[in-house]
């Protein structure tokens, strides 16, 4: 759905809320009044044809005049009603658009105001680390490394919070097209190769078809896959195992990310998709990745859940409709 359509829809919704009575009832009354005209014409033609006389003679002329007057009034009333409702729709659609623009401005401002100081800090620390202000001893280098790690963490948190705000406020990239999830998955796996090698993780892939396309936002599909992939890598111990499956599943595409390692306790399995919920506080992360992933999956009318088996590991499952335009509700 495009931005413009969403604004119009929102406008219509607000108009319906704003009008205390059902506007369709008003339309019906107005149109019934207007529809007297064709009935009159129909009767006029019929009586002329069948009986070679017009019923509209003498006293009937007055009836005709009154009927036309009523029809004319109906026309005027319906014109006023339609004009009024259209005006409201336009007003509310403009209001919705303005609100979207304000949200976009907020995101741009926050991005600029928060990211810039972090960038400056990071650059200056990097300048010091690289010896541009004199040589450092090992302890000083370690201290600065710690600062860089903390800055990276804040950076990730800001990016995640901005993503979440974009999703929740509706200011979000809504341009959808056919995206081949297999291609995206392969690319993301390739980009994560270093991380797999670093922890000597064994990766197995099971790909059900070469083309498993879904009607979705390409960037957001990348975000879903990269979030689940990095999550799997993060929670897999050294020399552990990650298994990824993707296959068609009726009118859906099913993705599975399995990893060995610390098992999510059953009482936490539902909560892990909550904001700021983290399984292991010693691992890096903002606790927003899975919340963002869930929001995006639901935005595409899909489902995401996790399963865990003690002694084995955790499995994250995503199902996405191949064509969400056909999904009702």
């Amino acid at each position, binding site marked *: 759905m495009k931005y413009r359509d969403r604004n119009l829809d929102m406008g219509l919704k607000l108009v319906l809320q704003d009008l205390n009575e059902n506007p369709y009832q008003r339309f019906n009354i107005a149109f019934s009044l207007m529809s007297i005209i064709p009935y009159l014409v129909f009767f006029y033609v019929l009586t002329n044809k069948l009986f070679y006389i017009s019923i509209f003679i003498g006293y009937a002329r007055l009836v005709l005049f009154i009927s036309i007057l009523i029809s004319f009034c109906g026309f005027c009333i319906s014109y006023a009603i339609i004009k009024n409702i259209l005006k409201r729709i336009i007003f509310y659609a403009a209001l919705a658009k303005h609100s979207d623009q304000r949200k976009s401005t907020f995101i741009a401002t926050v*991005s600029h105001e928060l*990211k*810039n100081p972090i960038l*400056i800090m990071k*650059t200056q620390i*990097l*300048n010091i680390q690289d010896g541009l202000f004199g040589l450092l001893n090992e302890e000083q280098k370690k201290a600065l490394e710690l600062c860089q790690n903390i800055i990276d963490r804040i*950076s990730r948190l800001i990016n995640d919070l901005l993503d979440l705000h974009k999703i929740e406020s509706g200011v979000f990239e809504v341009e959808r097209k056919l995206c081949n999830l297999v291609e995206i998955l392969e690319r993301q796996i390739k980009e994560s190769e270093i991380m797999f090698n670093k922890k000597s993780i064994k990766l197995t892939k099971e790909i059900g078809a070469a083309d498993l396309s879904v009607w979705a936002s390409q960037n957001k599909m990348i975000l879903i896959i990269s979030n689940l992939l990095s999550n799997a890598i993060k929670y897999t111990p050294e020399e552990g195992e990650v298994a990824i499956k993707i296959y068609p599943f009726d009118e859906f595409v099913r993705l599975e990310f399995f990893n060995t390692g610390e098992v999510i306790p059953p009482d936490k399995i539902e909560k892990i998709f909550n904001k700021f919920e983290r399984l292991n506080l010693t691992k890096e992360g903002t606790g927003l990745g899975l919340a963002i992933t869930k929001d995006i999956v639901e935005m595409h009318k899909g489902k995401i859940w996790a399963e865990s088996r003690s002694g084995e590991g955790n499995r994250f499952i995503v199902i996405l409709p191949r064509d969400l335009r056909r999904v009702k509700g």
Partner: protein
Amino acid sequence: MSKVKVLLVDDELDFLEVLGVRVRSWGYDVLVASSGKEAIEALKNNPDIVILDYLMPEMDGVQTLREIRKISNKIQVVMFTAHADGSAMADTEKLGVYAFIPKLSFYQDAQATLKSVIDTIAKKLNKE
């Protein structure tokens, strides 16, 4: 062979300072301007490369770039921003931007990209 002059334009004075230190360490002459207006003024000093921030008050990156292009088509311009999107890139590409570098969260990547872009432009300029 004279040193290549790089003009840094950003409304964040602190950023200008830290980036200035970095670019100087790469062996280039650095000029700074904290607004689009100042950048136009600084063109008198004949910079070879302009590193321009996209989001600035009053005169933003694109407006500044338009003004620069009115004066010279030779200056190589690199856009640098924290808020990059497709339309921004399309706008600036029409005006002859050499490269568009987002200010990434993992700054080392952006910095390496910036260095390689400046080095490439400098090599080209020296050949000419």
